[in-house]
């Protein structure tokens, strides 16, 4: 009896701590995410600048975030199926930007090209860079990850890091190690229209116009097609999927292809949007997109898009208000905060890795 009553006492105290912990894990991250925009909105209001400046930043943030969302989809798809952080994904995206830029030259796209030619040319660029990134991604999986499928989990991650460096150096060989600018084909900073004083640029429209159909198609592909069903089955239980007659290796290759296609699309949008490229942009973009994927809940497509948009907004606010040089630190601080408060992400379920 005595033992039972002694044992019964601690759970009460622990339960109170648990409530606090649950509150923190539910709302802590959201509060941290909202803190930055709210802070600068208040500062703006106090200085009598109104809501327009912050809304401007949010519009740019959403279009910027659309690019991160496309890259984040690649991380999330791959993680969902083989629980591996495809570290080389960002650098694959960088290769895509270089392919797109090379195609400008091949197709003769310049600032003087007429609108019809431009749209046609850019469509070709989009398709080619998507295929290039997709193919690279499948190749990396074949060479660096498939031989290690039975090895300890550290091994494929290390080869992923190795491949990230290989791709970066391919980039250096291709266009040198300094930044270079590409022609601003779509006049990205031209204000297309304004809504209540908030400016919307060409680039914003482009990013959203490419991202929404692609995400829609990807969702359709995964939910409606046979191979999409195979992907979901493999993600759930590879062994059972194999027993049901699914070719697991092919399915995994397909997943890498899908991720690569999204990164390829993002790379053209990025080249048109930023108009400055270099071999290291992929590494940075990859880390930002990975943060987005984790923020949404890795393995979750909707989460990746949501995370991309949020990170895009935070990044714009940080770029313009705190200073662009501190943005990486801000983004990574958020990454650490996510890991502390809510490793499963905003809309994700608990995974084995981040329980």
């Amino acid at each position: 009896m005595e033992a039972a009553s002694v044992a019964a006492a601690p759970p009460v105290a622990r339960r109170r701590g648990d409530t606090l912990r649950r509150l923190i894990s539910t709302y802590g991250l959201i509060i941290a995410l909202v803190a930055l925009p709210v802070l600068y909105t208040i500062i703006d209001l106090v200085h009598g600048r109104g809501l327009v400046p912050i809304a401007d930043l949010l519009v740019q943030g959403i279009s910027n975030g659309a690019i991160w969302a496309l890259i984040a989809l690649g991380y999330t798809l791959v993680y969902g199926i083989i629980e591996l952080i495809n570290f080389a994904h960002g650098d694959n995206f960088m290769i895509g930007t270089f392919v797109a830029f090379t195609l400008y030259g091949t197709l003769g796209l310049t600032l003087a090209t007429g609108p019809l030619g431009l749209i046609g040319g850019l469509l070709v660029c989009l398709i080619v860079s998507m295929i290039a990134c997709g193919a690279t991604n499948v190749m990396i999986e074949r060479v660096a990850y498939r031989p290690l499928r039975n090895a300890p989990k550290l091994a494929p991650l290390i080869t992923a890091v190795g491949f990230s460096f290989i791709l970066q150096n391919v980039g250096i060989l291709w266009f040198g190690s300094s930044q270079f600018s590409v022609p601003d084909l779509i006049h990205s900073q031209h204000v297309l229209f304004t809504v209540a004083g908030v400016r919307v640029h060409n680039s914003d429209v482009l990013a959203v116009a490419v991202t929404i159909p692609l995400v829609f198609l990807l969702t359709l592909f995964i939910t409606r097609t046979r191979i999409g069903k195979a992907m979901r089955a493999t993600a759930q239980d590879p062994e059972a999927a194999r027993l049901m007659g699914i070719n697991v290796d092919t399915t995994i290759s397909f997943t890498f292809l899908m991720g690569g296609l999204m990164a390829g699309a993002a790379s053209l949008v990025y080249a048109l949007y930023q108009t400055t490229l270099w071999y290291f942009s992929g590494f940075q973009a990859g880390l930002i997109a990975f943060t987005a994927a984790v923020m949404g809940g890795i393995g979750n497509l909707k989460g990746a898009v949501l995370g991309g948009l949020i990170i895009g907004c935070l990044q714009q606010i940080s770029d313009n208000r705190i200073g662009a040089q501190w943005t990486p630190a801000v983004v990574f601080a958020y990454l650490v905060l996510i890991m502390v408060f809510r490793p499963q992400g905003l809309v994700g379920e608990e995974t084995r890795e981040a329980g």
Partner: protein
Amino acid sequence: MSRLARLRDLRRGNLVVAVVALGLTALLPFGLDPTGNFMNNAVLALAYVVMALGLNIVVGFAGLLDLGYVAFYAFGSYAVGWLASDFYARVNGGKGFHLLVNGFPATLAGIHLNFLLIIVVAVVLCAVVGTLIGLPTLRLRGDYIAIVTLAFGEIIRVFAFFGDDIKFSNDYLLTNGRQAISPVDDITLGFLPQFDSATNLRPYFWFGVVMVAFVLFVNFRLRDSRLGRAWIAIREDEVAASSMGVPLVKTKLLAYATGGALGGMSGAFIGSYYTSINANNFQFGFSIFILAMIILGGLGSIWGCVVGAVALSFINTYLIPALNDIPDKLGLNFDFTTLSFGIFGFLIVLMMVLRPEGLMPERRRRLELTEGVGSDEALVEARA
């Protein structure tokens, strides 16, 4: 022979190998030009050995993939930058603050501490930083740890880069960014000839040998201790280790702290060897450089790490520049030295695919790697 006796023999063997190898290494400078290029590279190779052995504790023993190891290099170096230069020239009303230094630095403004004290500071600082970096990763496993440590490494790089924007007051900056904190004091120790990076590199070399000896001792003793066995247990199976009574939090944090401390020690040494603390050195690539060393040698294998570190640092300084003729002969126009990290990346992939246990594998690690390969359940097991 009983198992215990065999184990004792093995240990004695390690001791003999260490004494002979380090003894021969210590004699090396007598046959060499004291300011030569080889001497310079050899000193750096010794410092990298210390770094690799430190990272080996975190990645090799405890199985926590740390991609932000450059953070400890940065903190170790800045310990020297802050405490052995005229960077904080206004301290103590411009008269400077001196502790156990003699000779020229004792006459300068700024903070000047004895190098041995700085090493202690760097070790303590990096142990604390290591613990702080480790804290958020405690609930995580595997690849998430890699990303969080990478994020910390990048945050610290950003602060090092733009630290000249952070002012405590007008005279006290955090770092000097890419302008570098320079010059920092030459090391002055009573029992070795005067350290001077311009005229005589031998004292640096000998100091490096002593450091390597110390770190080897720490590594071997730790590996065979209760703590070392706990690290290896966590690496092999965290859940099983935990249910056998291994305290996960304490054990993991100790791995981060120990690994970090050794990194800081080497960082302080490299910092004062370069005589300038430049934020450009603290890039992500450095973490991968060190990681490649221990992968090359064999994760978890102490002698492997030594061999890997020496091999890779000489590949970096000799083999890659030597390869520079090849593109010319093939009619291509590029510089191999700019591609050194691509080559390290290639090496990492190659090692992992062809010989994941490294050049000088640890027996236990090899067993882990080959276990379950080829069985039907392998994929499921690898994921669970």
